[in-house]
C-alpha cells in the first residue's frame, strides 16, 4: 500500500538508515566544508570519515544548508508519483534549511509541499517523520506533526565546549558557561532555545545527571539515544532505558557530520517527544 504523499527531511534529522527504508523517507543533505572541500552530509562523507577528519583537521569545518534549487529538484522528482509532500526540517533558529525548502517548493507548480520548521534538531525530527509517515493523509500528517513540535526535546551532553562555541549557535553567556574551565555542559534544546540545564566537571558523573533530568521529564511518546563516536556508552544508556520503558522502541542513532561539527566528538544525547 503506497502512501499518496511523500515525507522529506534533511540530514540533521540523523534518521536511522533502517527507518529511512521502513518509512520511505527522502533525506536532503546539508553540507560540511573543510576549507575549500565540500561534502554532502552522509552522502560524500560518512560519519566515521567525518570524525576522523575532525580530529586531525587544523581548522574547524563549517556547514551550509541545501540550496532552494536542490530542494526543488527533490520535490520535482517526488511530484511524479505523489500528490503532496510534508518536508520536516531543522529549526529555523539554527539553520536556513527550512527557508531554503520553502523557496524551493514555490518553484514546483502544482505540487503541494507543507514545509515544517521543527524548531528542533536531530532525532526528534526523525520521530516527527515517523509520525507523518504513519498518518493517513497529508493534512493528518501535518496536523499530527505540528501538534508534537512543542514536546520535542534534545538533551545533549558535550564532551567539550570548544565546537559549539566556535560554531556560534550558542553563546557562552546563553549556556551559562562563561569560563575557561573545560566543563561538560548538559544542554537542552527546547522551544527554539538552547540552554544549559547543568554543568559537570567529569563525564562519568554527567551521564547519570542527563538520565536523571530525562526521567524527571517523563512521560514521553518517543525516545532515542544519540552519540558521536561513543556507541558503547550510548548502548549502555539505551539498555537502561529499555528496562525502564519496555513499551518504547528506543533507537540508537549516530550524530551526523553537520551536527557533529557543532557538538564535537564524544557527544551523547537523549532525544524525546514529551507526551
Amino acid at each position, binding site marked *: 500500500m503506497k502512501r499518496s504523499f511523500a515525507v522529506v527531511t534533511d540530514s540533521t534529522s540523523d534518521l536511522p538508515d533502517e527507518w529511512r527504508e521502513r518509512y520511505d523517507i527522502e533525506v536532503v543533505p546539508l553540507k560540511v566544508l573543510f576549507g575549500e572541500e565540500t561534502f554532502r552530509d552522509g552522502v560524500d562523507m560518512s560519519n566515521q570519515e567525518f570524525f576522523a577528519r575532525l580530529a586531525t583537521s587544523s581548522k574547524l569545518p563549517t556547514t551550509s544548508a541545501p540550496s532552494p534549487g536542490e530542494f526543488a529538484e527533490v520535490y520535482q522528482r517526488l511530484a511524479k508519483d505523489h500528490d503532496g509532500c510534508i518536508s520536516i526540517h531543522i529549526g529555523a533558529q539554527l539553520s536556513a534549511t527550512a527557508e531554503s525548502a520553502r523557496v524551493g517548493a514555490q518553484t514546483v507548480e502544482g505540487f503541494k509541499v507543507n514545509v515544517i520548521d521543527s524548531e528542533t534538531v536531530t532525532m526528534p525530527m526523525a520521530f516527527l517523520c515517523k509520525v507523518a509517515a504513519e498518518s493517513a493523509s497529508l493534512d493528518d500528517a501535518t496536523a499530527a506533526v505540528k501538534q508534537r513540535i512543542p514536546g520535542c526535546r534534545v538533551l545533549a551532553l558535550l564532551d567539550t565546549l570548544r565546537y559549539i562555541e566556535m560554531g556560534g549557535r550558542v553563546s557562552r553567556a546563553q549556556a551559562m558557561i562563561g569560563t575557561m574551565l573545560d566543563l561538560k555542559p548538559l544542554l537542552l534544546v527546547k522551544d527554539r532555545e538552547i540552554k544549559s540545564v547543568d554543568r559537570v*566537571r*567529569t563525564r562519568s558523573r554527567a551521564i547519570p545527571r542527563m538520565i536523571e533530568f530525562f526521567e524527571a521529564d517523563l512521560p514521553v511518546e518517543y525516545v532515542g539515544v544519540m552519540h558521536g563516536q561513543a556507541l558503547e556508552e550510548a548502548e549502555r544508556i539505551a539498555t537502561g532505558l529499555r528496562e525502564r520503558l519496555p513499551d518504547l522502541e528506543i533507537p540508537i542513532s549516530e550524530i551526523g557530520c553537520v551536527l557533529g561539527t557543532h557538538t564535537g566528538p564524544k557527544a551523547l544525547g537523549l532525544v524525546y517527544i514529551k507526551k
Partner: protein
Amino acid sequence: MARESNQGVDGPLFKRALLGSLSWLSANHEEVNRLNVFPVPDGDTGTNMLLTLQSAVEDIKESDAAEVSKIAKLASHGSLMGARGNSGVILSQIFRGFARAVEGKSSLTPAELAAALEEASNAAYRAVNKPTEGTILTVAREAGRAAAAAAASPGATVPRVIAAAADGARAAVLKTPSQLQILREAGVVDAGGFGLQVILEGMLKTFEESESANGTLVTSRPLAQVASQMAVALPEGGWGYCTEFLIEGTGLDLDVIKNQIEALGNSVLVVGEPELVKVHVHTDDPTRVITLAGRYGKLLKLNVGDMSTQHKRILDDASQSAGAPRPNGVGLVAVVAGSGLVDIFRGLGVDAIVEGGQTMNPSTQDMLTAIESVSYDEVILMPNNRNVILAAKQVPGLTKKKVHVLETRSVPQGVAAVVAFRADRPGADNLAAMKAEADRVQTIEVTHAVRDTRSNGLKVKKGDVIGLINDKLEFAGSDYGEVVNKALGKLGADSFELVTVYRGKDASDDELAKLESDIRSTHPGLEVEVQHGGQQHYPFILSVE
C-alpha cells in the same frame, strides 16, 4: 593610696588598656606569626589578631565615654566588623562576651572585671562549633579562672586581677603543646593563645603604669619593653595598598627595616633572616616603601594590591552581572586570590569576589561589603579557605539579606560548588547540591616548607616541596612531580577521572610541563587539565575528582 589602688575600671581606663594591648600586640605580632604549626608560608595569626584589634579600637580612639560599657560595646562592634582569621573571630567573640557582661556598668570592681573575663571566655566557647582544647579558647578560660581566683582573694585590686589573668594565660599557653599533638610535633605553643596572652599583658602594662603614676606599683615586671602607644600607626581614611615583597641581601637588620617601614604604613610585618626578609605593609605610598627597601638589597616577589579599589571592583562586578537576573534570585560571593582564579570564579557566574585567602584573610566587613553590593537578597558565600570560614560565619548576623555560608575549605572545593550552582533552583536546593559537590572533590596543595619542622609524623626541612591533602600535610620531597604523585597514590588515583592543576604565580613553564608529564606517566588513566590560577605561595593547587 589605698583608695587609689581600689580604683575601678571605667571608660577612659579601659580605653587606655585596649590601646596598651594594641601597642603590645603590634610589637609582638611577628612572634605570634612565627608560631604557625604548619610549615606552609601562611603564618598570619599574629597579623590577623592585630588587624582585628586595630579594628576594635578604631572607634574607641575618638570616644571619650566615661562608662566602661560604652567602650566595651565599641570594641565588640569594631572587632566583629574587622575580624580576620579564626583567632581574630574568636577574639571578637571574647570582646562580645565582655561587652555583654559589663552592659549598663559605668565602672567595674575587681570582682566584676573577673566575672566579665569569665563571661568573655564562655561567649568564645559558645561561638565555636567544636571547641578544641589547647587553643586560644583554653587560654581565655584559664585567664578568666585565674582572674576570678584573684578577685576572690582578700585585698583584690584591678591590677592584681589583670595580672592574674595574664599569668593564667601564660601558664595555659605553655601547656598547649601537651594538649594538641600538632603543636607538640612542631615544637611550638598555640599562636592564637599566645596572641591573647600578649593582649592581656598589654592591658596589664597600662594598669601598672596607671598604678605607678599613683605611686602604688604592685609588681616588679620590667616596663622597658612597653611600646609607645603612639608607635602604632592606625589606618586613617582609605585602605591604601597592600604591599608585599622579599628583600634578598646580606646582613639585613630586621629591626632597622621594620622601623623605617612602620613610618610609611600600618599592618607592618617584617620577618625573616639576615639574608632574606619578608615585608608586608599597608601603605598609601607603595613607591616610597619599594624605594626604601630597594636600598637594602634585591626585591623579589613584589606584589602591590590596591585595597581602596577593592570595594569599587566589587560594585563593578555586581553591575556587570545585573544584566540577566537569575530566576531563583540567589547571588554568589566568593573569597579568592590570584588573577586566574578570580577570572575562573567570575566566569562561573560569581557576582562579587572578595580578594583574599591564604595570605590575607579578608575581614567580616570585607565579606559583608561584597554581599551588600550584590543585587540579590539571598546570597551564597564561599570562603574557599579554612582560615576564612569563621569570619564568614559572622556575616549572616550582620545583614538583612539571607546569607548562606557554604563552608568551602579550598579553591577546588569552591570551584566544584560553583559549577554545581543552577540559576533555576532555589537557594536551599542549590546549597545542598553545591555542598555535595564540594565534599566530593579532593584538594592537593603543593608548596615549599618555610622552616624545618615535624608535622603529622613527617620530618620536613626548610625548602622541601611539601604536599597537603585536604589541608593535612602528608608528603615532603625534593620535586613537585614526586610529591604530587605520592599524594595521588594516597588518594587512590584509580577511583578518579580528572585532575585540574591550578598553576600558581611562581611556577615556571618548565616546572609545569614536568609536573604534567610526571602525572600522566604515573597515572595514565587520569585526564589532566591545566588552568592559570595565579595564586601566591602555592606553586600548584590540584583538584582531584
